[in-house]
């Protein structure tokens, strides 16, 4: 494994080792480019993952303090936990369920397709589906995505079977066990899924793809990648010409270190990435790095989400087998006749008893709540994920007073639903309630959004410098050797779970960075 000097200014330094940063690091290393990934968390893997929801949360989740505001219910029910993401090698791809969907062609160009939607900052992406096609294929092959590349999908578990029976009764046409990046057969040196059912807690068999134990080790094997753990970046530094020169990070003991760099790529997830740019303000960049547009931290998206849990007369044991075990895609089209633009996916989901108690209906108590919990083993359930509207007031900002353990201002996440989000959620609740009632549900619960697992858009890609933070390659408009490499570069969110797109963009960006470096443009 490589180990590079902190004074080596020929390196690419990537901040964060998740879907974006981990894959970018692997790709650059494979192209022979010396790369250091600085990761705030430690290293965990199948050997030490635990099948225990709260214990796993304590082991790998990002627990540094955050605050939240806005009219969303998360800010009331989970005031210190606006989002649920990971602090460890592999980032949130340790927690992730594995659903890997391509954007639909029209979702790259929503302004063109939806028109001007009031009170949004909606834009077209500066790239399109044709250009992304080959990168998607490459990402799917790396992740072993099922239902693509001739890879057979998983068999359905009990939760899926209930869902499928309901989907048929509803007249839905497009449903299956999902394009999961989980092995249905041994692939890439990893085993097939054992239907353990703790996918969110890090897959103990390694059947599920994760940047942490798949991409990063592949990069390390080349000898060109160093993944330095417990290295939390606090500030990105620049020279008089405005080029970035390196980063300052706190090491495991909290001691500050300086790592020099030729290129810096920010991939800390959509809350930490803008926080870092904002905290790197200087006399030259008074509003933070790469922020001449004023868009850093703005347009925060989290997908329109919600869940539906249904109780049946007979047992389901929905927690047995893959956490997310199937999808209906019929509702993901853009059909404004439904009263909103954009669409949503229905994806089965199961929580363990401890998380169900916390998330089913936060704050509720008494006989009604208890009676639902007593039917835990008779439940089936699904998660709703749809396109939400970017709004410039939904934003990550630095807290005016509170600081973290390294003296860095903590982030505040402000979020309120757009009218379109609310209409879409109500439609999705109505449809999914009907789906479960059609197969005999005796009680259906409409569960509000969890802390955000999909965090997007806070350093968005734009066609012109005044509208966003980075260009079509994720290169910041203001600083040519500074890149955005994670979900924060999303212009809009589409209805699909974001990770496949983050990975495809990272692969595409690696090629761009390599070319720019070899032509000495950066």
């Amino acid at each position, binding site marked *: 494994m490589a180990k590079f000097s902190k004074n080596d200014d020929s390196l690419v330094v990537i901040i964060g080792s998740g879907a974006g940063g981990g894959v970018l690091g692997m790709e650059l290393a494979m192209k022979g480019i010396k790369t250091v990934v600085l990761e705030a968390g430690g290293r965990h893997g199948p050997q030490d993952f635990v099948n225990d929801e709260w214990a796993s949360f304590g082991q790998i989740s990002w627990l540094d303090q955050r605050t939240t505001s806005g009219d969303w219910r998360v800010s009331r029910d989970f005031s210190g936990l606006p989002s649920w993401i990971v602090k460890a090698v592999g980032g949130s791809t340790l927690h992730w369920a594995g659903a890997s969907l391509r954007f639909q062609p029209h979702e790259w160009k929503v302004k063109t397709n939806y028109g001007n939607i009031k009170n949004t900052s909606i834009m077209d992406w500066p790239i399109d589906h044709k250009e992304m096609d080959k990168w998607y294929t490459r990402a799917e092959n790396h992740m072993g995505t099922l239902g693509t590349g001739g890879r057979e999908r998983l068999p359905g578990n009990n939760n899926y079977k209930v869902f499928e029976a309901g989907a048929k009764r509803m007249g839905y046409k497009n449903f299956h066990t999902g394009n999961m990046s989980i092995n249905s057969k041994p692939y890439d040196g990893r085993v097939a899924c*054992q239907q353990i059912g703790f996918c969110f807690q890090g897959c103990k068999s390694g059947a599920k793809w994760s940047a942490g134990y798949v991409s990063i080790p592949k990069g390390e094997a080349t000898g060109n990648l160093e993944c330095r753990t417990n290295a939390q970046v606090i500030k990105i530094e620049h020279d008089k010409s405005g080029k970035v020169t390196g980063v300052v990070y706190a090491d495991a003991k909290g001691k500050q270190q300086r790592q020099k760099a030729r290129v810096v790529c920010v991939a800390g997830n959509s809350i930490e990435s803008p926080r870092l740019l904002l905290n790197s303000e200087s006399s030259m960049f008074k509003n933070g790095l790469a922020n001449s547009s004023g868009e850093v931290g703005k347009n925060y998206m989290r997908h329109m989400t919600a869940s539906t849990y249904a109780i049946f007369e007979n047992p389901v044991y929905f*927690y047995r087998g893959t956490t997310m075990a199937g999808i209906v895609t019929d509702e993901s089209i853009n059909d404004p006749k439904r009263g909103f633009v954009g669409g949503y996916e229905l994806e089965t989901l199961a929580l363990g008893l401890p998380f*169900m*108690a916390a998330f089913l209906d936060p704050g509720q108590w*008494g006989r009604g709540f208890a009676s639902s919990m007593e039917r835990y083993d008779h439940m089936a359930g699904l998660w709703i994920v749809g396109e939400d509207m970017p709004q410039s007031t939904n934003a990550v900002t630095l807290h005016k007073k509170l600081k973290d353990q390294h003296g860095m201002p903590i982030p505040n996440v402000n979020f309120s639903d757009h009218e379109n989000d609310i209409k879409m959620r109500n439609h999705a609740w109505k449809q999914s309630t009907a789906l479960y009632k059609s197969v005999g549900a005796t009680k259906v619960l409409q569960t509000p959004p969890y802390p955000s697992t999909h965090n997007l858009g806070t350093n968005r890609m734009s066609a012109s410098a005044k509208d966003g933070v980075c260009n079509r390659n994720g290169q910041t408009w203001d600083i040519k050797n500074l890149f955005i490499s994670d979900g924060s570069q999303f212009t809009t969110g589409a209805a699909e779970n974001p990770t496949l797109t983050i990975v495809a963009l990272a692969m595409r960006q690696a090629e761009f960075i390599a070319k720019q470096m070899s032509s000495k443009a950066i």
Partner: protein
Amino acid sequence: MRLLNKSTISRRTFLKTGTVTALGLTIMGPMIIGKDKSWAATFSNIGADDAATLIQMARDIYPHDFLADKYYAKVIQGYDSAAGKDKALKSMISKECKKINSAAKKKYKNNYRMINREVERVDILKSNTKSPLFAKVRGDLVTGLYNNKEVWPKFGYEGESASKGGYLNRGYNDIDWLDKV
């Protein structure tokens, strides 16, 4: 389908007498003895009276008739040890218990934990949901009760599965009633 057996049996160990509350808890000095005499606990910091109030409150917040009092009492035992070091907590508990009891006496002529009818106790709780004590007990129960591995089988939750080979051969897809609905 592979069905789970949800019933478990508690052992009887204690045989003593004293004041009996609505829950059937016996209070003797700082000690509370469970009604099936399968458990007992000492509350030397917050006192058995307030502890019994809190145990009753815990059950009224998440009333699962198939759970013995000891599962609720466990959460409150945690408060007793915390109150030993945390004066603010200790005085908050005592102040808020007094408040609840005076509301209960005013409306139902009895201390909260001595009211026999659940609807009446819940009525008192409903007008008290803003109190810091209520918020604390409810919030702590979410993990204190539902994250207690001993209660999982009673809800039909099997917990850890990797060491058993997952559910691949243990019923991940054994649902057998769908064609009948």
